[in-house]
């Protein structure tokens, strides 16, 4: 058994095996779609394909209702129409495996030995969740690859490429904007310390702090990332107008989905949707998310992968809308964090089981509401608060057991 495990986690076996598993799932999905009433392919894949079809006819992808993504995705999937329907899924599973490779390279650069790095990235490559999500036709793996690519380039100090990938990531989905602060803090010029024995004056410290943001590297990053984002936004606005801005960005920013979802705020927002105080409540719901993002960015910006992981987990857990697709956003960063955790396997598995238990306690009343017609709103609300508490507990365990490697132990950049 141990021999099998060690063979499987040899990188020359792991990457091809994970690709083959995903291809097998895509093939099975095609069979299930053709023969069974319950379809394997996600509805989102049909939305992408319909939008791509509009593009092939020279029309706007936003003619497809519920297409709320960048036109870039529909453009990428036009071979679904010209070649074959399964092209998109192949692209997504390739990005999935690429994400595994990026995790491996990043871990090696952060000073891990190859064996540990392979074990860690097998947590992504052999994980059924991203396998299932990509083979069903969700595009989350493209974003995972972009975010991991940004982190790898940052780790390797290739800032130009990091900025390009970051600009592209923010264009595709809004949430990577939460990485802007930790990236900015990590690219600041090192602050000149006060001379021995001389207490630094507060105003001098403040000026030095602000001045540290005017570093050449940070400005370069900002200009390139901002340039890429602006160029893409301007191009697509010119091509598709206001619907592009609304569906890709504003809809997600102002979205008030009152239907049941994992968010702890769901029931509060449903009950107050039409009341006068709903704007203030929306702001009150945004505050914990904002405060935590600022604190996490400040506390851990020296370990960028960890800061980004925490930022994403906080963003998802405290968001006004939370669906299971969002979990992948921080799951792809977890393999970068796990090798530095001083947790035993038993403790790790315990936390994982706790996370699943929290989800199960929410899914049960949600099923009874949606498919059996029971009024379980209060139970769902309580389960949502419990799930938030479980997520916070797990994050606290991760934070208290995290042992970052000191910078001097990192190997030289190749």
């Amino acid at each position: 058994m141990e021999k099998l495990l060690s063979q499987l986690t040899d990188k020359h076996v792991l990457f091809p095996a994970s690709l083959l598993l995903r291809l097998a799932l895509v093939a099975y999905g095609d069979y299930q779609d053709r023969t069974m009433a319950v379809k394997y392919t996600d509805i989102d894949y049909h939305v992408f394909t319909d939008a791509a079809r509009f593009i092939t006819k020279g029309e706007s992808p936003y003619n497809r209702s519920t297409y709320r993504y960048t036109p870039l995705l529909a453009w990428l999937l036009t071979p679904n129409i010209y070649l074959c329907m399964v092209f998109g899924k192949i692209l997504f599973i390739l990005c999935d495996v690429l994400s595994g490779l990026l995790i491996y390279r990043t871990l090696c650069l952060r000073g891990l030995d190859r064996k540990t790095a392979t074990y860690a990235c097998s947590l992504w490559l052999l994980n059924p969740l991203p396998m299932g999500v990509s083979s069903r036709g969700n595009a989350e793996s493209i974003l995972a690859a972009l975010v991991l690519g940004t982190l790898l380039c940052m780790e390797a100090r290739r800032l130009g490429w990091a900025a390009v990938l970051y600009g592209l990531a923010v264009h595709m989905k809004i949430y990577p904007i939460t990485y802007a602060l930790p990236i900015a803090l990590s690219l600041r010029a090192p602050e000149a310390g006060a001379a021995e024995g001389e207490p630094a004056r507060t105003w001098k410290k403040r000026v030095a702090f602000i001045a540290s943001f005017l570093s050449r590297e940070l400005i370069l990053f900002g200009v390139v990332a901002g340039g890429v984002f602006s160029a893409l936004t301007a191009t697509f606005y010119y091509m598709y107008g206001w619907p592009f801005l609304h569906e890709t960005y504003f809809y997600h920013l102002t979205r008030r989905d009152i239907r049941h979802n994992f968010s702890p705020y769901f029931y509060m927002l449903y009950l107050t949707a039409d009341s006068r105080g709903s704007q203030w409540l929306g702001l009150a719901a945004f505050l914990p998310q904002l405060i935590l993002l600022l604190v996490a960015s400040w506390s851990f910006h020296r370990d960028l992968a960890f800061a980004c992981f925490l930022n994403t987990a906080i963003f998802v857990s405290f968001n006004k809308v939370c669906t299971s697709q969002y979990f992948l956003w921080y799951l792809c960063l977890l393999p970068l964090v796990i090798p530095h955790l001083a947790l035993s396997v038993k403790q790790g598995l315990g936390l994982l089981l706790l996370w699943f238990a929290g989800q199960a306690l929410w899914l049960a009343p949600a099923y009874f509401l949606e498919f059996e017609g029971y009024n379980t709103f209060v139970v769902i609300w309580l389960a949502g608060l419990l799930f938030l508490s479980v997520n916070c507990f797990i994050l606290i365990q991760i934070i208290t057991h995290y042992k970052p490697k000191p910078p001097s132990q990192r190997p030289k950049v190749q």
Partner: protein
Amino acid sequence: MYFQLFFVLVCLCKCNCLNQEDEQEHCDELKRWLESSTVSLEFSKKGFHREVTATVELRPGALSGASVLLLYRWPSGVFVDPYQLASLRDQSNWEILLDSAIDLELPAHKTSGFLTYVFPSNTGPAPSVLQVTIPVHGRYHEPSFAGETFTSVHIEPPELLLRTEKCTDLHRFESRFVLDAPCTVSNSSTCSWVKKTLQQEPSTMGILLPVGDGSATKLICGGTLLVTMICCVTLSKYMLERRII
């Protein structure tokens, strides 16, 4: 010459009378088909995702002799998913036309009812019985401030509309029983259809959908904000304690 003209006129009149008699007969038959028909509704499945089955019983010959249209007037509390309906096209014995775009996410009080035109194909359990099953989904409703845990959404049985090429002069019918509706599912033209004359009180059926408890709003808001603030403060404390300098 006048005699020949007279003879032609008499022949034409006779043809017209015969045609009119023919048409009268077909229109009477249409009327009989409508009056003897019954439409009943039943629901299956539970929760927010239901199936609505309409069973139409007609006189034998009606299905082959006339075009049938079922006109559903849906309330704002439910919706149909156009993409789901499109994917069911191959397996269903009907084709459907919607009168407006459907927003799948709006709550019931922010949208209005809509019409669907269902054109059944002639395959039913028996030659004179049609069964049409349509999947519908419940919308979220406004929370109740009166302590009610469910709201009722009333759905009327569809109106049965018939038309036939052999009865084109619909002035024989009262105007309130003649409707304009699309001729076919492709919606390229509009035709006049006839609906049942003896209209009893339409028997509506209700489906129950859960609603939120508006009277507990303060408790829910207070509880939510309290727990989220506690989590926020606790997490911030640990992050600041373990920050990497």
